[in-house]
């Protein structure tokens, strides 16, 4: 065997599904040349529960609980997109107060989700403190959720035709008080991590994906915007009461890990400002359209999508007129974002694989459904 032949022997490294940094049960098979990644093969499906099939056997009201469990970090955003699909099929007009509360809570949930990302991304690149700070602030948001919806994670709050019940009387004051803390928490994490020399070294120029490849891979959300494509469903196809809010959509240009990270820092600030606008505009009125207890949308099919913290979530719903959907298909943003992992990953280092995977911010419950 010549020396050239010996150099050809690559090492296969099985990263996951029980690896501490794969954000769930994701597995990638890395082919390594030293520490450099030559090839990569992702494996998913460890958490496949057949949610879409389950939906075909549950009534519309029950499906909301299934959507809670897809992206278990941004539950309310998930509920909203499904409920909107059914409402559009039924032609329901949702009371304005309900719409405002929905948007408000969804933006709160976006902040909570991004906070979780900021912290765990710190963990991915080896900083162990940010996660404590962001979880502390996220807890305040969870407390608000608990006081409004009765649950900390699986809310089952956004219902077809409105919301489950009106917000408690001290809601506005509580949100405003919590937002002050959350703002400080985001700033604190920003100060601690964003411009840290080592963090910049780890994330600048790592996992670069250009706009064309990103679009072709179906990347959406902050990940796509980091590559310089200003696509945001809230802006381009506004739903609920987003047209009544002024907000900024941060757009990056490099498409590297740091950009993807920083997009989320900026989005936190934007979401906080949107929540404040919602609180200012919150009208009085009913919070639920009075409909029949059991939703039976007419025959037809509909596609509705919305902006999740992780990207563009869509629901394709086929109804046959009964109380259960005939077919329900979710466009899971994390699933599509994972497609872009391979182009980002090739020719980087083992350590980068974690940084890149973390920067995409996947939730495996949604990838596998």
């Amino acid at each position, binding site marked *: 065997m010549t020396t050239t032949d010996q150099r050809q022997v690559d090492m296969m490294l099985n990263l996951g599904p029980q690896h501490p940094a794969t954000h769930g049960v994701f597995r990638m098979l890395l082919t390594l040349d030293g520490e450099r990644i030559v090839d990569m093969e992702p494996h*998913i499906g460890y958490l496949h529960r057949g949610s879409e*099939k389950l939906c075909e056997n549950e009534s519309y009201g029950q499906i909301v609980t299934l959507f809670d469990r897809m992206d278990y970090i941004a539950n309310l955003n998930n509920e909203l997109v499904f409920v909107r699909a059914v409402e559009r*099929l039924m032609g329901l007009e949702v009371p304005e107060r309900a719409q405002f509360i929905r948007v408000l809570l969804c933006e709160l949930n976006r902040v909570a989700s991004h906070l979780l990302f900021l912290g765990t991304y710190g963990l991915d690149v080896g900083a162990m403190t940010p996660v404590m700070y962001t979880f502390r602030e996220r807890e305040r948001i969870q407390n608000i959720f608990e006081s409004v919806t009765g649950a900390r994670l699986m809310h089952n709050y956004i219902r077809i035709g409105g919301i489950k019940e009106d917000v408690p009387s001290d809601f506005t004051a509580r949100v405003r008080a919590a937002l002050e803390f959350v703002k400080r928490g985001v700033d604190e994490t920003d100060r601690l991590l964003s411009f840290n020399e080592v963090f910049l070294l780890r994330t600048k120029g790592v996992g670069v994906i250009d706009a064309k490849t990103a*679009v072709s*891979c179906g990347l959406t959300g902050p990940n796509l915007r980091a590559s310089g494509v200003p696509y945001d469903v809230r802006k381009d196809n506004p739903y609920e009461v987003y047209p009544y809010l002024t907000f900024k959509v941060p757009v990056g240009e490099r498409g590297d890990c740091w950009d993807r990270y920083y997009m989320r820092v900026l989005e936190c600030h934007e979401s906080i400002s949107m929540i404040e606008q919602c609180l200012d505009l919150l009208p009085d009125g009913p919070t639920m359209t009075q409909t029949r207890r059991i939703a039976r949308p007419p025959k037809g099919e509909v*596609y509705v999508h919305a902006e999740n913290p992780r990207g563009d979530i869509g629901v*394709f719903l086929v109804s046959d007129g009964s109380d259960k959907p005939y077919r329900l298909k979710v466009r899971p943003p994390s699933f599509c974002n994972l497609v872009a992992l391979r182009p980002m990953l090739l020719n980087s280092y083992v350590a980068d694989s974690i940084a890149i995977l973390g920067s995409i911010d996947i939730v495996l419950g949604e990838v596998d*459904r």
Partner: protein
Amino acid sequence: MTQPPKPTPPERPARHGPPVEVAQEVFDVQGQETARLLARVVGTNALESGGRDEVPWVRVERERLPHVAERCRDDQSLRMDMLHLLLAVDYVEHLEVVYILLSTQTLRKAMLKARVPANDAQVPTATHLWEAAHWYEREVHDLFGVTFTGNPDLSPLLLYEGFEGHPGLKSFPFHDHDEF
């Protein structure tokens, strides 16, 4: 743990009472415009068309599906550069493969559909058009058994290797699953 069997309610006709006013399948302004552009791009390939709100759809022959999708992608007025979603619906006698296309530039959405006979579920692949098609096609192949001819890798994505059957199909037994 044994769960007492769930009592099945007796069959009764689906009641469509007065409560829900049936939403009209109508286009909004953007939808009309998109439908017009789409009709021009798809041309004589269109077998049937329709749509609601801002999403028009066009049904084409399954062999023409990637071709039409490519034309939608490359057309200057549509520029559907993102394969937003690829899915299959099981209508028992036939399957329907649906592409949902989206443009990040013109912000238009459209659906392309193709009917696939259940006993010969084959569609040409779209992997050469979009990276995203790889996983979508593997997923649809997993769950519905649709073979995408030309796709280099249709190995199971969501299911484990050796899983028999296609759980997305209506014929797949739903209630007979083993409970852990």
